[in-house]
């Protein structure tokens, strides 16, 4: 972690405990004090505007559909005001707000524009483009089914992803390390790998005993290719001098593979893991749309079948949160594993 950037304002200095003032902070102080007032006001002002637009837009809409969104905005407004007051005493919150306030305010502005364009001016054909209030209402009304769908998607995604990663690490290390494995494995990898996993859907549906089974297999296949490719290239690009050093230290072949080549390939392996994760999201949604009778992909096509577009968007919102959370978790894992790279590469 960096040295905490803390702005010490003249008027608030008196009530600050001495410990906080002594924190190293000088470098960024001028920037912070210029942004001082703005970051406090951004969210409340944006939310105020959002509320105003909402009241104007919801005049010609049934009240129950807009109620939740109104409460949602009120909660954000009061939370932002409370936070603005609390940050004078709580430096951690202050730093967090300096970081997050602009982006939160921007998100609220976007919601407002969305609402103005849909429920307000009705520039877009109505049933297909509900406003944020409608989507929020669908989200709340259908929360049980949505939760269940998310849970099923998670199970399916994780089992496919881990299966794919495990197989890919083994094949990748073998292809990267052993010359015969490379000779026989590389052509297979080069021919089978680039076929999008979703292209196998028709075959998988026929061959696999159940849709669930085939979906796991397809996701694993989607993950397998990039992870194998990147692992193999990482392993075979291990700097020879690291291997030489290890050999003069008395390393066995197992040491060379597991303690030199694999750690050296880790940055590459993580690129593969990220690419594989993206491919697995795509395959998951396709598999759920065409075969599996559960999960978020299934929910979207089901809601669309009933022309409940509020629910479609609600599921998309959940998907966005769901996928980006998983992405974030993988980033955290990478930061943990590749902590030695910190300061060497631009994160």
């Amino acid at each position, binding site marked *: 972690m960096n040295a905490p950037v803390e702005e010490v304002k003249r008027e608030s200095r008196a009530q600050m405990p001495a410990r906080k003032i002594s924190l190293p902070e000088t470098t960024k102080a001028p920037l912070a004090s210029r942004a001082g007032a703005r970051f406090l006001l951004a969210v409340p002002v944006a939310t105020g505007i959002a509320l105003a637009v909402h009241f104007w837009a919801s005049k010609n809409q049934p009240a129950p559909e807009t109620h939740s969104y109104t409460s949602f905005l009120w909660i954000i407004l009061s939370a932002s005001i409370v936070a603005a007051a609390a940050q004078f005493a709580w430096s951690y919150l202050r730093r967090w707000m300096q970081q997050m306030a602009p982006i939160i305010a921007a998100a609220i502005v976007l919601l407002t524009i969305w609402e103005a364009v849909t429920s307000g001016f009705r520039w877009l054909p109505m049933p297909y483009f509900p406003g944020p209030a409608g989507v929020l209402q669908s989200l709340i009304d259908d929360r049980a089914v949505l939760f269940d769908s998310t849970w099923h998607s998670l199970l399916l995604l994780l089992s496919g992803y881990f299966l794919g990663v495990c197989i890919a690490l083994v094949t990748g290390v073998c292809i990267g390390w052993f010359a015969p494995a490379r000779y026989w494995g590389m052509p297979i990898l080069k021919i089978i790998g680039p076929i999008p996993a979703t292209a196998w859907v028709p075959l998988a549906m026929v061959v696999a005993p159940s849709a669930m089974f085939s979906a796991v297999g397809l996701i694993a296949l989607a993950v397998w290719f990039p992870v194998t490719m990147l692992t193999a290239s990482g392993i075979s690009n291990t*700097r020879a*001098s*690291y291997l*030489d*050093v*290890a*050999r*003069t*230290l*008395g*390393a*066995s072949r197992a*040491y060379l593979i597991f*303690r*030199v080549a694999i*750690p*050296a390939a*880790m940055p590459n392996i993580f690129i593969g893991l990220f690419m594989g994760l993206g491919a697995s999201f795509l395959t998951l949604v396709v598999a759920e749309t065409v075969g599996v009778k559960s999960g978020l992909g299934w929910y979207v096509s089901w809601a669309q079948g009933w022309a409940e577009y509020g629910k479609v968007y609600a599921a998309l919102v959940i998907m966005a949160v769901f996928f980006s959370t998983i992405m974030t978790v993988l980033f955290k894992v990478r930061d943990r594993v*590749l*902590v*030695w*790279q*910190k*300061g*060497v590469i631009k994160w």
Partner: protein
Amino acid sequence: MVTASSNRVTAEGSALLVQNVSKSFPAADNSQASTLALDDASLSVAPGELVSLVGPSGCGKSTLLRLIAGLTAPDSGELSVDAEPISEPCAERGLVFQDPNLFPWLSVRKNIQSGLVARGVLHEKKHEVDEFMRLVGLETFADAYPHHLSGGMAQRVALARALINHPKVLLLDEPLGALDAFTRMRMQDEVLRLWKSRGTTILLVTHDIDEAIYMSDRIVIMTARPGRIERTISVTLDRPRQRNSPEFLQLRGQILEILHFAGASVGAAEE
């Protein structure tokens, strides 16, 4: 500091024999031409002897050390340790590379103990890790990663990483090159102390003639293109040696003269 159990020399070191070894590398651009990195080199090192290799850049010093370590095979000639031919690298012949080549994914402590891990003896020898970190003066950097070290610090870690294996033959490729004068002299004394207490056979590549005279029993002078062993000089001064004694300075002048002559001949060969 490493506590030497006594002053007796345990004569752990091995005898080293290099007989008529040649090694050439194919040139990168043209497969016909090749660089003769080492031409018919012969060298015999007694157990527990400390021999320095000096010579101009590109004369095959690193190549010779890699051959002795077993990392590369010679084109012709034979290499043996205690009458056993060298075929594979092993922990008994430790090599400190010209570049520190620390494992960037391991902290300083884990780099130093990697030799113990590789040989599967970490459990019995764990206490030595701290000793060697203190020896090279890096105990406060135990958890730092190599990218946060200066060049000299990294070199000291590389030295400790090789020393912890207690090799019978220690091959040092300019291990103190990046150090400031004072750290360098301190490390020279530490290496000498380890050498004395363990009786290790040491082959030391250096560009520093003072270092060669201060440390070694014999100095092997090499010439470049093709890499040849030009001459061997015995250093018979009493230890610990005085860096400014008349004998020391006289020897220094003598070696500089040979090197200068060797350098001139290289220049002539290139014309």
